[in-house]
């Protein structure tokens, strides 16, 4: 009986509503624009969603602790430039460059974590600083040049097949399978392992978590390390989908990931959130981004409408809390 209620309430929550929104948006755009209902459009939406999804999975952890990670957007570009530079200009094998990207991400995540948990900097400020640092570092890493990771068909371009393979004439977005797998794995980490449990505990009541004998500093840092690690993965996904990576870009990516996570039900005040919710939330943003130009709206409208959707999501969060209080 109890279990049944749980299942029901799970379907009743924000995640489910957002999933309906995703479906509704897809149907809406499909009706409005015949060009939208093409397989290739789905391919594009998926292609352009991977790096945001990866960032969103990662940033869900700092968000649940009640913090935020603003460094993932510029970080992504920075890690990609560093890895790409080594591949293109130093002749490193592709896998080594990819490894460097991810490790770089972990390193910056560690820095964020230390600033927040050891030095007690407010997360907004700490990650704003690393956001600037990575933006500058990215340009420095590539000596200011845009870096084209090995293009399709050239040597060392196998990494592009991680996200999309071509069989005969048809392209298959296998990246989506990895995304689902990662969401399942990280969902497990969040709900069934110590790291996840303590992440929620810190976001719920940091003082209490500390008094319970949890090594709060370590687990708080880990949340940012996870975020950095996924920004590193996102760097690979970005490099695999786009031809060149340009220094100076990337600012604003993090807002799409954070926005997606919040639309997907992560509470802006911490303690609540799910990885699958973040995934679905990102698709709201990606659908708007891709779909709005198809119905003839100038690109600026995408940002305005995304903002409005975010306000809606935050309102839902607040209303839910009010209800809970009563």
């Amino acid at each position, binding site marked *: 009986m109890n279990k049944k209620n749980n299942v029901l309430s799970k379907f009743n929550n924000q995640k489910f509503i957002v999933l309906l929104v995703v479906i509704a948006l897809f149907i809406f755009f499909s009706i409005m624009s015949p060009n939208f209902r093409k397989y290739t459009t789905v391919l594009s939406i998926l292609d352009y969603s991977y790096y945001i999804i990866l960032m969103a999975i990662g940033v869900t952890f700092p968000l649940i602790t009640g913090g935020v990670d603003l460094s993932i957007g510029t970080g992504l570009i920075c890690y990609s430039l560093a890895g790409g530079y080594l591949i293109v200009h130093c002749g490193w094998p592709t896998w080594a460059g990819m490894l460097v990207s991810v490790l770089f991400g972990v390193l910056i995540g560690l820095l964020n974590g230390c600033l927040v948990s050891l030095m007690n900097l407010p997360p907004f400020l700490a990650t704003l600083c690393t956001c600037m640092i990575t933006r500058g570092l990215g340009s420095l890493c590539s000596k200011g040049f845009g870096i084209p990771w090995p293009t399709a068909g050239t040597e060392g371009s196998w990494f592009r097949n991680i996200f999309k393979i071509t069989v005969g004439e048809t392209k298959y977005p296998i990246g989506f399978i990895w995304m689902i797998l990662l969401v399942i794995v990280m969902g*497990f980490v969040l709900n*069934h*392992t110590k790291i996840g*449990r303590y992440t*929620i505990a810190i976001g*719920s009541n940091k003082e209490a978590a500390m*008094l319970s004998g*949890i090594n709060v500093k370590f687990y708080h840092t880990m949340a940012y390390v996870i975020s950095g690690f996924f920004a590193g993965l996102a760097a690979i996904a970005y490099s695999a989908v786009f031809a060149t990576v340009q220094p100076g870009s990337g600012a604003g990516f993090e807002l799409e990931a954070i926005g997606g996570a919040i639309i997907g039900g992560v509470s802006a005040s911490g303690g609540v959130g799910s990885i699958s919710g973040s995934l679905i939330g990102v698709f709201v943003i990606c659908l708007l981004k891709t779909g709005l130009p198809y119905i003839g709206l100038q690109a600026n409208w995408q940002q305005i409408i995304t903002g409005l959707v975010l306000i809606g999501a935050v309102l839902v969060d607040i209303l839910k809390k009010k209800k809970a209080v009563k």
Partner: protein
Amino acid sequence: MGEVILTMKDIDKSFPGVHALDHVSFEVQKGEVHALMGENGAGKSTLMKVLTGIYTKDSGSIIFEGKEVEFHNAREAQDAGVVIVHQELNMLGHLTVAQNIFIGREFKKGIKIDDKKMNEEAKKLFDKLNIDIDPTETMSNLTVGKQQMCEIAKAISHDAKVIVFDEPSAALTEAEIQELFKIINDLRKQNLGIVYISHRMDEIKVITDRVTVMRDGTYVGTLITKDCTKDDIINMMVGRVIYEDPKSKSMVAPDAPVVLKVEHLNAGKMVQDVSFELRKGEILGFSGLMGAGRTETARAIFGADPKQSGKIYVNGKEVTINSPEDAVKCGIGYLSEDRKRYGIVVQKTVAENSTMAFLENFVKGLFIDKKAEKDIAQKYVDSLATKTPSVDQLVVNLSGGNQQKVVIAKWLVRDCDILIFDEPTRGIDVGAKNEIYKLMNKLAEEGKSIIMISSEMTEILRMSDRIVVMCEGKKTGEIGIEEAKQETIMNMATREIK
């Protein structure tokens, strides 16, 4: 009772500028409940924090189970069997009951946390304590009382040998307190050493075996509870007798005009068809158990929460109050039970807080008239005898009682004639309580009308001219102070509603 399990000897601890503990000694025996008493700031909490490793002592020794120990953090103390049930509940609201109880030492299957086993173990624990709580329930869905039970269960699950209860009853209803006492008695039978910190005299008499009193960071003495009176303890705490008898008769003239009249007020579940009158110069006590709907009634009158129906008359005229702003315009001021959250801005000065509700009166052109602000603040600091070095002091640096006075000043500056005091002396020590009482009496004499919500029976009986009793959102009784007795009020407060 008998064997000593914990001894703290000559504990000394200084903070910059404060000698918090001055060679304090304290001991707990197996199977006793040992009360630790003292006014706020007497050093009880500091002593317990030294015990559990949250603070490091400057000198002295702690002997636990015959061995000298020094815990470096709460975890080490827990592992050894010394556990605190904190005054402010340390709950992780987003996690389940079982997850809370086993936080920091989860059962695991490989890398997976074994929630199933944790639920089973929690259930066993609750069965042992005779508590009915579902381990899979989310913590924030439980009542405060149930949450506290979980804290206790958590402490016991640590295989505790000494449990420190830090003001456990502060947020509990009478029924929940009875349940708590039952559990504490059980624990006593199991030969645990229990430290019980509380301000409530009546509880001390009921539950404890010995009382140790502290004052200003020093040890005053230890008494056997059954051989001493409340006044003995209070004398040790404050050095003077302050426990007063109930008010014998109403101070309000029978023909005093009605200043506030509430008719058939409905606001959600917690306020159902509440009607009452408040006269000029009257202190109207609102009694009832936790969750009776008193605060909700006050908030609905004040416009802080929406109401469904009902009429409010101020000085005979019907008024519409949809927001606190409306209420303030009608001359109603509300002093919240949770000062820090709703009453004051702790990082602002006394002067800034004083004018907060009436800032528009202190604005010259675009700027705040700092001089006028300071003058009026000073006036009320003097008249309320607020202890502060100056009106420029940050409120965070004042004691609880003086913070409360700043809140009162805020509403007096606004010239409010109707003041709603919600738990005016919560978290305030005995001496300061007295001052707040005097102040309320003085305000009533000056013609202000006061609604006082209080969960402390002694406070209700001592201060009120008339008492309204609520239970589960309904008004269940109204009684003049002349006829009021603890038993009659309790009876109304727990009356079953048909």
